[in-house]
């Protein structure tokens, strides 16, 4: 079958997706079917927390696709995530209707507050779910296309490229902070009520969003794996390893880079769109350059160019973040930095590489004894 063919030779992916499938069945059972008060009951806030991790994992896969396989260290993927999130946030704002503080049926609260009389043109259409979903893909995709076309065609690579991706997300951060931009400024978009008519507070909606996040992660994983397994994937790795040689056998390297960068940006956008209804807010902080660096650290810790490593890294690091920011909020950033240094020094292939090494050495021992 199609899926088995994609996962052929991908042990890590098979295990990861199997675990994901179990989680996607188990969590609804524990949350919705096991009655509250039973010690097996899973509270809804935990479901939502897990859902948030899953969207981070999808984001990490997107970064691994461009960094691990194409060799482009993007330090700006948080921007694509945030743009997807804003597109979803705009739809959710329109869903509020006249239930805002000011009760204006036509304008979101922050626009009323700014004394705006009508909706800016770029808010048009976001009352329609399908249009907003289209924008979740298109806005990050088009930005990635324009950025990639300019950067890759002038053959900017390496550190310089990483720096301009940081500049990109920083520029967006500053822009979205401004009230005049029309995206809620500093406060961003929040106070969402419902999605497609379903209350965002209800357990069922939250569960649906959680399951959708898991399905999106699985879908994103299979898509990336399909790309990597194809001849296009081999060309992409060739570009990573010997870019100029790839040109001399006739591949237009820029086209490949732009294409993969766009796919990756759109995946990040989808992740952002699933993230926002679960956390209930999107603000310019999501564009923070630090966020983009964190994503890269998840991937490095999980092990790059494996895809499943990115998933493991994103979930473990964010779990640790949840635990430690609860205990010692100030220390987290230092811990993350230390973790990154340790992994770079002692586990250059990340956790996925560690597992691989253990397996290899076990196999080796067996062979020696035999």
């Amino acid at each position, binding site marked *: 079958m199609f899926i088995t063919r994609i996962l052929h030779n991908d042990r890590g992916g098979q295990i990861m997706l199997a675990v994901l499938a179990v989680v996607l069945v188990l969590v609804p059972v524990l949350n919705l079917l096991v009655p509250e008060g039973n010690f097996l009951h899973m509270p809804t806030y935990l479901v939502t927390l897990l859902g948030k991790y899953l969207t981070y994992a999808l984001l990490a896969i997107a970064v691994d696709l461009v960094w691990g396989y194409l060799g482009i260290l993007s330090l700006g993927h948080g921007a694509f995530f945030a743009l997807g999130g804003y597109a979803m946030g705009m739809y959710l704002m329109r869903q509020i209707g006249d239930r805002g503080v000011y009760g204006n049926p036509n304008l979101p609260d922050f626009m009323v507050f700014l004394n705006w009389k009508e909706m800016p043109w770029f808010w048009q259409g976001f009352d329609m779910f399908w249009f907003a979903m289209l924008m979740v893909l298109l806005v990050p995709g088009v930005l990635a296309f324009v950025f990639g076309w300019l950067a890759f*065609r002038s053959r900017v690579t390496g550190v310089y490229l990483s720096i301009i991706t940081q500049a990109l997300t920083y520029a967006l951060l500053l822009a979205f902070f401004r009230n005049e931009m029309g995206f809620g400024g500093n406060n961003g978009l929040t106070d969402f009520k419902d999605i497609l008519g379903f209350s965002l507070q209800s357990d069922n909606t939250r569960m649906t969003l959680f399951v959708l996040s898991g399905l999106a992660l699985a879908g994103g994983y299979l898509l990336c794996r399909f*790309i990597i397994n*194809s*001849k*296009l994937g*081999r*060309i992409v*790795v*060739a570009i990573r*390893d*010997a870019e*100029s*040689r*790839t*040109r*001399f*056998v*006739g*591949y*237009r*390297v*820029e*086209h*490949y880079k732009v*294409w993969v960068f766009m796919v990756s940006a759109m995946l990040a956008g989808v992740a952002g769109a699933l993230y926002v209804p679960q956390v209930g807010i999107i603000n310019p902080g999501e564009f923070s350059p630090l966020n983009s660096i964190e994503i890269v650290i998840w991937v490095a810790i999980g092990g790059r160019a494996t895809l499943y490593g990115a998933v493991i890294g994103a979930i473990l690091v964010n779990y640790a973040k949840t635990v430690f920011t609860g205990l010692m909020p100030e220390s987290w950033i230092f811990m993350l930095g230390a973790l990154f240094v340790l992994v770079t020094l002692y586990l250059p292939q990340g956790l996925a590489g560690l597992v691989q090494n253990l397996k290899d050495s076990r196999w080796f021992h067996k062979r020696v004894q035999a």
Partner: protein
Amino acid sequence: MSEGAHLRHTEAGQPDASHTAILYLEDLNVSFDGFKAINNLTLYIDKGELRCIIGPNGAGKTTMMDIITGKTRPDSGQAWFGQTVDLLKLSEPEIANAGIGRKFQKPTVFESHSVAENLELAMHGNKSVWYSLRARLSGEQQALIDETLQTIGLTDHYHQAAGALSHGQKQWLEIGMLLVQKPYLLLVDEPVAGMTHQEMERTAELLTSLAGKHSVVVVEHDMDFVRSIAHQVTVLHQGSVLAEGTMDEVQNDQRVIEVYLGE
């Protein structure tokens, strides 16, 4: 800059070599920080010809290939492939797709790919993104890979990572990549460096068999090797042509002797 403007030229088909020459280099000049690496270089290569280019280190042989393949842009001069393809207006992939293949002085293969995958990647055919996403090896392409592996003696290394090959094997693999690319013009920079005597003989055989159907330009320092394959030899010195002729003519040329002995 030429990237966008010349996309139309890409699938150039057969170069128009209705005249006898397939490659025209005229009055080329290149300087690196004031140092003239190529100096009024004029050179013609005929259809089906096997040409050897010799010259001391730093004569500009590799730089000449860089110009032909679009890696280096000359300060002035002309470079045409057949009657219609202006090489100076095309990007590297466009030149490759127009039918010029190159083997590099320092063997460069795709190290993390298997030997067979290296050939798959180099193979002639549609090189666009969307096509690559769905591309599968046809029976014909598989046969070409098998046949080429036979030719370059790497059949037993089918699944081996190219990075694990020896220096000589990488040379062979790169020659194989050149073969599956099916170019009209092959530029071969120092093919026998690091090869045993036997391997050198096989390379000589291979290159001579290619001439006729293809035009082949070989840069080589090994004089015995050059003697064994060459019909026409061009001597480059300080970025321009010093002498041209058969091996015997060239070796007896007073200026050539001075250049080589004067080193």
